[in-house]
């Protein structure tokens, strides 16, 4: 840990600095509670909860081939999108020292898959093209950044022996082979994320598992919804069993074969979409003043309230995630609670496998459409994810703890918690930007964040407005990403590998 960072002034412990930082975030979240649109629309949530609970234990599905096809589509979108985006991401990573590559990668990953999906749907409808592009574009940006990080952390010895080899050769013979295991394990993790994204795209109409889940939920068919949910969880949990490295080429061929129809690319229509439909009429006329007025009007009527709601949900969800992670993780660490852990890795894995949008949807049925379901869903998902990593960390370091370590609660509060805390904060700040992206996206469920306004604008066929909102969401995301990086650096927190 660095000793010369700003808050390490004489006479203050690192812990007190981190506590101060955490308190700041808690205060902001409390203020956000006043802004956030949190209501309990259903005075008696227990009845609905009971029906959903009953559905969960009595899963049924009338049409098995239909469900199997949805599974096929979900996997096909995810697999092909990851295959393409990993390759593109690696290419971008090789030129990550160029500013415009970094800006491009940041820009494309700052827009959520669902927003990309809504955008492409206007051109290609509910087709394979829409589904694939919606996942592979943001994933390319994410791969570029993470691959660049991984490659940068490799030691330069091998490559230094090459003399004046070209950049491509230096990567092909040196950097990439050296980092191969890490690159591959990240691709594997991202494939799981892609499965979640692919399923989620069903909520906006693509023929993946999410579509059937949403339909079943909307019709109150909780047993059918549960069947889809269980199938999805099984699919994620068993990835390592069926996705054998040697079978990947075979899977790719099968995925291409199973894809739904891909409409021919109509170049003039596409060109009209990006050159005209996305921009306000005034700008196309060349009327700068009217354009300014239009943007100002939309900013005040839609963007401003949407930004505040999104930020409020993000800040509250961030703190809820943190609190839940700290509450969960000790119960999943053998060193802290012994070998009978009430919260095993399996339960934490389930928590982080369910996509936030699905959780939010369920909570919305229970509590009604306010910010509350989004906050709970984001908190539970991210809390589970961080707790999983902290619990592993806690168990791994138990071998090097001193033999006279305190026991019971004191072991947690005086030793393990302070030891985990810097990693905890780093992980949480790392998720900040992800949580913001998800908060914005959850608007498509009817929660008043950016996604709600984006969705409504598309419904009104006001593409210029929708595009403006998406760009603003992207800018907010980039601002939070850079703020998070700055805070991590200032607090001396190292970037964790996910």
């Amino acid at each position, binding site marked *: 840990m660095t000793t010369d960072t700003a808050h390490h002034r004489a006479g*203050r412990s690192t812990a007190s600095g981190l506590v101060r930082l955490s308190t700041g975030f808690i205060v902001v979240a409390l203020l956000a509670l006043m802004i956030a649109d949190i209501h309990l629309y259903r005075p008696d949530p227990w009845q609905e909860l009971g029906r959903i609970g009953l559905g969960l234990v009595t899963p049924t599905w009338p049409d098995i081939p239909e469900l199997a096809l949805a599974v096929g589509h979900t996997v096909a979108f995810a697999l092909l999108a990851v295959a393409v985006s990993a390759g593109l991401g690696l290419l971008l990573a090789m030129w990550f020292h160029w500013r415009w590559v970094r800006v491009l990668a940041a820009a494309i990953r700052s827009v959520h898959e669902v927003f990309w999906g809504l955008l492409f749907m206007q051109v290609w409808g509910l087709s394979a093209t829409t589904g694939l592009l919606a996942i592979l574009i943001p994933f390319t940006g994410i791969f570029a950044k993470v691959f660049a990080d991984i490659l940068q952390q490799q030691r330069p010895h091998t490559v230094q022996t090459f003399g004046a080899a070209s950049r491509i050769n230096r990567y092909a013979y040196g950097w990439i082979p050296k980092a191969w295991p890490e690159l591959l394990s990240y691709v594997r993790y991202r494939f799981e994320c892609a499965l979640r994204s692919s399923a989620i795209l069903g909520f906006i109409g693509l023929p993946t598992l999410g579509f059937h889940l949403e339909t079943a939920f909307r019709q109150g068919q909780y047993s059918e919804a549960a069947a889809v949910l269980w199938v999805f969880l099984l699919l994620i949990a068993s990835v390592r069993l069926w996705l054998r490295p040697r079978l990947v080429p075979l899977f790719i061929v099968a995925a291409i074969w199973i894809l739904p129809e891909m409409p021919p690319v109509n170049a003039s229509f596409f060109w009209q979409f990006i050159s005209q439909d996305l921009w306000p009429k005034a700008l196309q006329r060349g009327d700068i003043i009217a354009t300014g007025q239009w943007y100002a009007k939309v900013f005040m009527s839609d963007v401003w309230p949407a930004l505040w709601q999104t930020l409020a949900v993000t800040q509250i969800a961030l703190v809820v995630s943190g609190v839940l992670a700290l509450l969960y993780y000790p119960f999943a660490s053998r060193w802290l609670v012994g070998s009978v852990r009430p919260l095993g890795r399996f339960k934490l894995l389930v928590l982080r496998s369910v996509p936030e949008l699905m959780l939010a949807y369920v909570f919305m049925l229970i509590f009604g459409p306010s910010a509350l379901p989004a906050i709970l869903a984001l908190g539970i998902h991210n809390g589970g994810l961080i707790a999983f990593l902290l619990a592993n960390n806690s168990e791994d370091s138990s071998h090097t703890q001193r033999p006279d370590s305190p026991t019971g609660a004191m072991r947690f509060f005086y030793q393990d918690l302070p030891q985990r805390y810097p990693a905890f904060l780093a992980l949480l700040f790392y998720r900040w930007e992800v949580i913001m992206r998800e908060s914005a996206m959850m608007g498509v469920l009817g929660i008043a964040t950016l996604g709600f306004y984006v969705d409504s604008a598309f419904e009104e066929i006001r593409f210029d407005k929708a595009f403006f909102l998406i760009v603003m969401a992207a800018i907010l995301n980039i601002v939070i990403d850079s703020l998070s990086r700055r805070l991590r650096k200032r607090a001396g927190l190292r970037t964790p590998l996910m």
Partner: protein
Amino acid sequence: MFSLSQASLNHGKQRVLHDISVSISEGEKVALIGPSGAGKSSLLSLLWEQHPADIALCPQDNALVDILSVYQNIYMGALSRFGTFYNLLNLIRPWPARRQEVSTIAAQLGIADKLMTSPDQLSGGQRQRVALGRALYRKQNVFFGDEPVSSLDPAQGDALLGDVLSQHSTAVVAIHSPELALKHFTRIIALQNGRIVGDWSASSVSLAQLSAIYSGGQ
């Protein structure tokens, strides 16, 4: 007080202690000497396991909680003396009476001005003083140390070791320096390759004999 007879210890497949028989009675101050990897730390932990609750321990590394304050790190020696709730409140705000006691110890160790900083901001020598501080605040009669002054300069290490030993009636300390072993201890046990190769009272052994242990002879 401590006794082992024909004890052995394996780390994985490797045997780190062979056939150790030793007994240590109350009032003895024992130095464990020997080259690195001779089994000093292993012997120390075998002995520690016989009375874990009554020993003030100062282990070699990872002894501190890096981000907590020096005060909290020293206070941790007293966790078993106070109730859970009292300890928790202390984590939020130090109790004035405890802070008074801990600052007295920190002053003895020469780190009084570091009380509210944290070990991750300290040098190796200062960290070692904090670890010793925790052992002193355990307030036990028995002190176990594993190279407790190795990061301090010789003069400071000498003074501090004398000070710590004077506050305990019994001690077992793994130590690298034959000079310190002769000066501060009543009994010296030498280890080599996991076996005891010498067990002398300090008055009956010479510096030359001890130095030979390190150069491979006996």
